[in-house]
């Protein structure tokens, strides 16, 4: 216990700093991923052929091991002198987030009760009115579940990004491994877990806020 106290005394501010780096990396990646994934998911509901293809590609992306994807990013981004660091990690995280976000947006909207959709069309709503007023609000819990999956997943994957110099909590863990320092490994892991739990809880709160109570259950 005393050892921990001493460890934290020395490292607390660094841990906090790395946690913030980690959160910033993941947040930026998720924001960009949402800007791409949600409109794409919505568009795919109107184009069945493209939907199948895009969802397949997104699934395949997710099966690439993160360390391999980061590895692939390095030579590509070396071309613009960004081979290591923030940019390749950021791009990889955006790619990883696409599947849960696109898929949940797509299936959430597709699975809106067909009778509800029928009523909306029969009452004379235009496509965008139907999407904005009926389909998206009713698909929101499913879409948000996808966003939460993407966030929690990315918080985990971003740990690996430390290997390509993107910083974040992965730094504590990789250093801990190379120096055989359990304090570093454990504190890094706990910080990652806490970050994931906090992020997920905040998103759940937002979801409840924006979803009328009827849909929350």
């Amino acid at each position, binding site marked *: 216990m005393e050892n921990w106290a001493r460890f934290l005394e020395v490292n607390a501010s660094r841990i906090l700093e790395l946690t913030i780096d980690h959160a910033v990396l993941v947040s930026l990646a998720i924001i960009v991923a949402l800007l791409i994934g949600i409109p794409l998911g919505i568009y795919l509901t109107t184009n069945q052929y493209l939907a199948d293809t895009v969802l397949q590609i997104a699934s395949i992306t997710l099966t690439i091991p993160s360390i391999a994807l980061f590895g692939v990013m390095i030579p590509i981004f070396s071309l613009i002198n960004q081979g290591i660091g923030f940019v390749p990690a950021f791009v990889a995280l955006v790619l990883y987030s696409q599947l849960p976000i696109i898929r949940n947006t797509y299936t959430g909207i597709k699975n809106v009760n067909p009778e509800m959709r029928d009523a909306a069309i*029969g009452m*004379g709503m235009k496509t965008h009115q139907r999407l904005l007023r009926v389909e998206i609000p009713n698909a929101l819990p499913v879409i948000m579940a996808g966003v939460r999956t993407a966030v929690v997943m990315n918080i985990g994957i971003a740990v690996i990004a430390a290997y390509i110099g993107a910083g974040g909590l992965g730094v504590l863990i990789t250093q801990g491994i190379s120096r055989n320092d359990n304090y570093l490994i454990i504190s890094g892991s706990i910080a990652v877990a806490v970050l994931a739990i906090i992020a997920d809880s905040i998103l759940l709160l937002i979801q409840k806020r924006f979803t009328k109570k009827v*849909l929350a259950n």
Partner: protein
Amino acid sequence: MISFKNVTKKYGEEITAIDDVDFTVEEGKIVVLLGPSGCGKTTLLRMVNRLESISEGEIIINGENSKDLDPIELRRKIGYVIQSNGLFPNMTIEENVMLVPDLLGWSKKDKRERFKYLMKLSGLDAEDYGKRFPHELSGGQQQRIGVVRALAADPPVMLMDEPFGALDPIIREKIQDEFLQIQREVKKTILFVSHDIDEAIKMADKIVLLRDGKVMQFDTPSEMLAHPKNEFVSQFFGKDRAIKSLSLHTVENLREIIGLGPVDETIQDTKTINVHQDLRNTLSMLMNQEADQVIVKDDHGENIGTITIDLVQKYLHFEIKGKISASQEG
């Protein structure tokens, strides 16, 4: 007014869901599409607001050919009610009901006033129910809202696809009565799908009986019961169609034709019914022997006579059976 002119609907080459259908729903009348499952009722209904395309023929709505109209505008002028009410769970009752007026860009004040009026029609309190969400209402209340929502922008035409089909029988009858009451006030031109014979007899000014997409008979309920055009029609209405037709007649009709019995003041165990009660319900009540004497009251609550099973039977014989047997001989 809705006119179907030689309307045909094909799904691919093989399936003819609607086959050369030709009839007119007069302004302010209710026409019920009746027939066994899969005969094409829903398909025919949905061709009116262009949720289904028309393969051949045309549908004229208040003088305009439906295919010349913009589908979005067309639909906003047609009230549409479906069986599972189709209320949007993410909107309050007020938002649901005022949706079409909202799409049409009505002012806040107009919407508010219209909402209050519609809720009065529905018999639900505007202040209380307006803020609720659909799941906070019973099935019957949701269906009432489904109906007034279709009336929201005061469309001249209404399409109703088994609107009361999901309700239990007691609530269903009650809502049918309420709806007929509303219709007396709003006088819409209504196409109404049902597979329930009793409902069709009760609601319809005229019935279209369909089979495999073809019209078997287009007539008033009493004509159809009295003069079925072919074997299918008479079988469809069943052997008890004479009793069914009793629901088209009231105690008042019986009184006019054969008169009521005298009131016996010495009998204690009596029940009363209103003179506008239909004879089918009256007969059930008489058969249940709920009382020794059933007294008929007029709208002012005055006793105007008594009614018995014998009288109903006599009326049935003269007025209804007479017609039916005449048609079978003819």
